[in-house]
């Protein structure tokens, strides 16, 4: 493998993430995972509840609403979620970077006065 530009690196890595979430997640193991299995085995799984905010979660349980085919619904959920995570991560970084000011800013710039 040779060195690639940052743009290419980001594009390939994002495509890989979106591809995995869309195409592979429908075939992931549906067995209960670590905490879920322990909760079931030790009989406290029933205590779990949804926060009122989550009653209207757009894609509850990783199933895209209105899609009958379970695998397609999961794949679509993965597609949307991966892009949402990218958007929020990128947006947060962009915002923090902007607050940091122009690149050669003095080290103390923007920092709270001690």
């Amino acid at each position: 493998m040779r060195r690639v530009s940052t743009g290419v690196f980001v594009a390939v890595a994002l495509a890989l993430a979106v591809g995995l979430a869309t195409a592979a997640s429908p075939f992931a193991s549906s067995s209960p995972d670590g905490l879920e299995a322990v909760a079931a085995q030790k009989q406290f799984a029933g205590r779990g509840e949804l926060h009122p905010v989550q009653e209207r979660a757009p894609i509850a349980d990783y199933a895209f609403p209105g899609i009958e085919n379970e695998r397609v619904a999961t794949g679509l959920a993965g597609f949307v979620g991966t892009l949402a995570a990218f958007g929020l991560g990128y947006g947060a970084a962009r915002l923090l970077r902007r607050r940091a000011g122009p690149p050669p800013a003095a080290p103390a710039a923007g920092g709270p006065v001690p």
Partner: protein
Amino acid sequence: MAIEVPFAMHVPDGFLSPGVAAATAVLASAAVAAGTRVANRDLDESRVPLLGVLAAFVFAAQMLNFPVAGGTSGHFLGATLAAVLLGPWLACLVLAVVLIVQAFVFADGGISALGANVLNMGVLGALLAGYLLIGARRLLPHTRRAFLGSVAVVSWLAVMAAAAAAGLELGLSGTVPFATVLPAMLGVHALIGVGEAVIAVAAAGAVLTSRPDLVALAPAELKARGGAAAPAGELEGAR
């Protein structure tokens, strides 16, 4: 009325007492605030898209449950990989971003329990992993093999630390006795941690080959290999 709530590795609402939820939320908020301050200082232009890509990758990988023993599955946590590529503090932010998307869009992991999840995976996962890797770098030879070996060990430790923290919170909340939940959590996650180590090493190795300068916690000798001298050690949040 107990509703069966599907959730992934994350603690849902109802598992933790209000006191534990509040205490973990305070600690997690402090860590995230400190992380944003480090980002303010250290985030260079090339890492802005990288933070988004890491969040996307961690989200995607957390959907890919792999089977472990006894009808149980595990999934990639991503804390160590994020720390390897971005340093401890930015990695903590990545995990927080992923957990926020999962809780609010996918109802995976509670809202009241969000602080606990950020504490377990972002702080005890990513921050701890980052500082362990920085420590390992001081002790180990600066070779690719030693570096990836430390990534493997730290990946496993980070998963175990997150699992232990979740177990402690459940115990403190009175949801389930410590003696019951801790061995169970650590037992399952000892296996999941092996999967975590395999994936983290593969991904870190691929980046180390294609763009060594983007591996924030790699020794400077490995980062510089392949040209374009990167300003060494710029983004580590610690020396």
